[in-house]
């Protein structure tokens, strides 16, 4: 029995929604879905997670998100999807500490960090992860180079978080892939070189929401090894 909600597949009935209860459609190892869960945890929200098999998608996931992706949010008649939109909505709509900065310029800088991370670093991350052995060193070098801009920003701003003394939205939105950097052996050389990033990662592991949503390196490794197959296993 996994220690997390099991993944529903094609043909399986959807667990009925509970009126008034916030629901996140997710996949336990998906970095985009983790963004939504990080915010829900950081805000201390009462929510349920419905995990979905992304190789054999349940029909009712597609009814909520025609793109068939997680995360998706459902709360009574409200349905939203796209990880950054869901994350911002949770911060805006629910009370408690605001995860986004109250300063306009800071918010603009934070959005740029997240945008640039998504367009420059995430592709290099997957390129390294998927690289055959002969291309690995070059891919790792490229990733280290792309991370240098983020490292520069972190040395100036991380106190210890980019959000300041407390973790902020910007930290949470880039976290899932940085957790990957700390978990997959192929990235060992990256963290040896990127010492500022490593320091920030260590600080992130003190955050409750981070620990509540980040999977162990063992499970991540097991999941990733089988993910290319149509019969990929989601429940370990």
């Amino acid at each position: 029995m996994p220690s997390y909600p099991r993944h529903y597949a094609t043909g399986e009935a959807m667990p009925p929604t509970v009126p008034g209860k916030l629901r996140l459609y997710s996949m336990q190892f998906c970095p985009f879905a983790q963004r939504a869960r990080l915010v829900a945890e950081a805000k201390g929200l009462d929510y349920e997670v419905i995990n979905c098999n992304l190789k054999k998608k349940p029909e009712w996931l597609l009814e909520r998100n025609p793109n068939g992706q997680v995360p998706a949010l459902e709360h009574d008649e409200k349905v939203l999807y796209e990880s950054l939109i869901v994350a911002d909505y949770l911060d805006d709509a629910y009370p408690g500490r605001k995860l986004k900065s109250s300063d306009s310029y800071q918010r603009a800088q934070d959005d740029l960090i997240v945008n640039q991370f998504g367009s420059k670093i995430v592709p290099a991350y997957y390129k390294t992860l998927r690289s055959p052995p002969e291309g690995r060193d070059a891919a790792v070098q490229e990733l280290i180079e792309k991370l240098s801009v983020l490292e520069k920003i972190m040395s100036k701003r991380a106190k210890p978080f980019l959000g300041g003394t407390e973790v902020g939205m910007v930290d949470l939105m880039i976290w899932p892939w940085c957790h990957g950097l700390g978990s997959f052996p192929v990235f060992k050389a990256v963290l040896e070189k990127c010492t500022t990033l490593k320091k920030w990662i260590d600080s992130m592991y003190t955050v409750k929401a981070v620990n509540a949503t980040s999977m162990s390196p063992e499970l991540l490794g097991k999941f990733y090894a089988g993910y290319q197959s149509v019969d990929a296993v989601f429940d370990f």
Partner: protein
Amino acid sequence: MPVVEETKHLEVDAPLPPLKKGLLRLYSNRFCVFSQRTRLVLAAKSANYEIINIHLKKKPTWYASKNPNGTTPCLEKDEDIVWDSTITCEYGNDIFAENPLWPTDPLAKAKDRMLIDFFNSKIFPNFMKLTFYPVEGKEEFYQQEYEKNVGKLQENLVERGTTFFGGSQPGMVDYIMWPWFERWVLLDDTFPKDNFPTILTWRKNMIAAPAVKEAAIPDDIHLEYFNNFKQNLFQYDY
């Protein structure tokens, strides 16, 4: 006039115009669709600002020190620099109090952002394939994709039941999408505009909106730029 000054498109050896303290500066390009988004937002906010136009094929040497990505738009105010068209629009909306462009309700705002996401992935790329960046042999495919998705956009506006996507006045969603709809004159004669009566009415209403008028390029200039573009001539000053 909210646009205090606008330069010609500055090229490689052009000196950097000195900043005026406290005045917002927009690095832009008259024909850059993404820059036009920010011009629309700043016009809607009645912002005071100056425009430094950049020749995108012969960029001034100092431009990389403003925006390392080399793209327009880019906003500069005293020490603060902001780039990326989505972010410059957000920032422009945030720093001027007048006329908030997002709905106050978090759910309505999230739905607007999802519509913008749909527009960015399924509408404007197809428009570009029908005009500036055609792919030989795939003209019919992109036409069908564009028509299908503009149809969905139309359904969304009908469902909202308002003049603009933003309500009785244009909002962020309207301005973010507008540059590609201003350029409908570039579409082939075969494009069935009459299949989209609600969009046609929306276009008419947008063309009459003050912010759109302020940032507008006339159809004949769009066509002239487009004809030059197709011959690999990048003429920005008309």
